[in-house]
């Protein structure tokens, strides 16, 4: 693979569509999303359960559970297309180029093998190393993720580690072949709050040190605010808004993002009722016409119920909302405009 130009994004997702064929018709779980992740960048992906965050991650690494399938779009890694690779080639991308971390560290490790063996087999799968070299590297990695006495702990089994320690081992496993990108799917959800912060800080530090980009999937806006460079807000299988994290948090453009931000408790604002978004996300087989958020949107107007908005640039942010449509902005400037 030729060295990509410096300005080329590490990961480029174009018009990705993921579908689940069912007896009662095809369900479109991810509907035409496009985004990119730059080298070494942390992209946060937020949204409610079922918004398609995890599916996006699974689609990128080619691990959609059948019958789910990529029905359209393209995924590029370093300029090379990866969504149409044959399974054996895709397998070599996983772990080597794209690492993954899943939600539950308690169940991500095979209980019957020592963590050293699990690390070594991953290392020797992807890197040209002998067993002894792999073991040495495994010990270094364990030290790097903050496991005390790694030369002893390497021969221990998963059940001999606590949840936080196990998640550190999982991070070591995801990093062990020096991938360019890590997809971290709710990496701290199953952990104690006090340990969550440690794990996030660790992940952030390691990825900065190794120059690894991260796609951080979470529903925790606080984690995003602390960790991510940019954030993509997903709703009902589409991206509602994507932009630099400060910008999106301070000046949310999409009413859904505003709603999400309003629902975060902050230390300064005690005694106030937290805002909540009324209603629930639509089911996949009942996505409303127009903007999927329109039944819950406080600022809904006629166009939202008819026409579906695509992402539109608005400064450094892109937002899929008719409130920010260029023609509307123009109309507003001209003093016309409805609603």
């Amino acid at each position: 693979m030729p060295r990509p130009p410096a300005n080329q994004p590490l990961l480029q997702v174009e018009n990705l569509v993921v579908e689940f064929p069912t007896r009662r018709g095809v369900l479109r779980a991810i509907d035409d999303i496009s985004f990119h992740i730059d080298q070494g960048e942390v992209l946060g992906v937020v949204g409610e359960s079922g918004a398609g965050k995890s599916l996006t991650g699974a689609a990128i690494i080619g691990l959609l559970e059948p019958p789910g399938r990529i029905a359209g779009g393209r995924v590029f890694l370093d300029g090379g297309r990866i969504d149409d690779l044959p399974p054996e080639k895709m397998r070599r991308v996983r772990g080597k180029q794209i690492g993954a971390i899943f939600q539950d560290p308690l169940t991500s490790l095979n209980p019957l093998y020592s963590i050293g063996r699990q690390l070594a087999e991953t290392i020797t799968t992807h890197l040209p190393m002998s067993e002894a070299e792999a073991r040495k590297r495994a010990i270094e990695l364990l030290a790097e993720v903050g496991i005390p006495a790694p030369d002893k702990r390497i021969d221990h089994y998963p059940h001999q580690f606590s949840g936080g320690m196990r998640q550190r081992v999982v991070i070591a496993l995801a990093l062990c072949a020096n991938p360019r990108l890590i997809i971290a799917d709710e990496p701290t959800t199953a952990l104690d709050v006090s340990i969550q912060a440690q794990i996030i800080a660790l992940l952030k530090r390691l990825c900065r040190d190794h120059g690894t980009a991260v796609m951080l999937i979470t529903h925790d806006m606080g984690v995003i605010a602390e960790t991510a460079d940019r954030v993509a807000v997903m709703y009902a299988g589409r991206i509602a808004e994507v932009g630099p994290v400060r910008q999106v948090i301070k000046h949310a453009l999409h009413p859904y993002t505003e709603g999400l931000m309003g629902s975060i408790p902050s230390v300064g604002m005690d005694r106030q009722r937290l805002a909540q978004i009324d209603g629930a996300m639509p089911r996949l087989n009942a996505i409303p016409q127009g903007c999927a958020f329109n039944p819950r949107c406080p600022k809904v107007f006629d166009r939202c119920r008819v026409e579906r908005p695509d992402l539109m640039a608005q400064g450094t942010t892109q937002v899929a909302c008719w409130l920010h449509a260029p023609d509307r902005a123009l109309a507003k400037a001209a003093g016309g405009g409805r609603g």
Partner: protein
Amino acid sequence: MTAFVVRRLMQAVLVMLTVGFIAFTMFNFIGDPVNNLVGPDATAEDRERIRVSLGLDRPFYVQYVKFLANAVQGQFGTSFRLGMKVTTVLAERMPATLELVFSAALISLCIGVPLGVYTGIHRRGVLSRVFLTFSLIGISLPTFLIGILLILIFSVYLKWLPSFGRGQVVDLGWWSTGFLTQSGLRSLILPAITLGLFQTTLIMRLVRAEMLEVMRTDYIKFARARGLSRRAINFGHALKNTLVPVITITGLQIGGLIAFAIITETVFQWPGMGLLFLQAIQYADVPVMSCYLILVALMFVMINLAVDLLYYAVDPRLRADRGAVRGRQV
């Protein structure tokens, strides 16, 4: 670990005592062996003489204590029918049965496990469906019918394999084996398949069900995300996690094989313990019956002990010291 083994051994002793009691009571409740030994025209004196010589005239509890004492020393008395020591008779027959059971177990593992893995991974494959359909035959057809069908096809029509007996055996002094001669091996094929077919299908279906379960777990998903090869995932990570239930069932089934060998041995006139046992029942040959019962129970107990120890080899969570098992984590 040691405490566990000791506890298991004590349980085994209890089981053996119970079985021993049942074996002993058979002497008193199954017919009158003297009637079967002597002809209808024997005199009352003859009967009494035989009764005394076999020790059947003494009171219940004396006979029981004597029975236990002898059993511990491996003495089960004299066969009423054959007039030989029971242990000698059984020792003669045991290699035949054990070789048959061993072969059947080997067949069932060597075929059942790979087929189970295959059908578990290729859940919707055409071949998987074919295997599963055929496995229904193994599960539902009774052993004797399968044996007779195999004899009909391979011995009567095709004349490929012998229909009965054990073929030539080589006597190794303490063990007579059919593994070393061609006719011995040829004779072994049909009975071993007959005996092993049910276990094969059972193990296949068990491995398949366990594989389906394991393939859904997070650690398999994570192993895929780490880019491990299919082979490493399927046979390393997945199969090993299915082993504990498979070992359990296989262990129990080997005990079952010894017991079910009675039917197969009868169909194929295989000179093993099962056939001997059936003949012993016909003649109310109680010493043979009770010794067989105790021997089979002993094998069951030993297999179960071996199974428990195998768990330790497979699952590190059991191997760890007890504190860690109860949830002490570092």
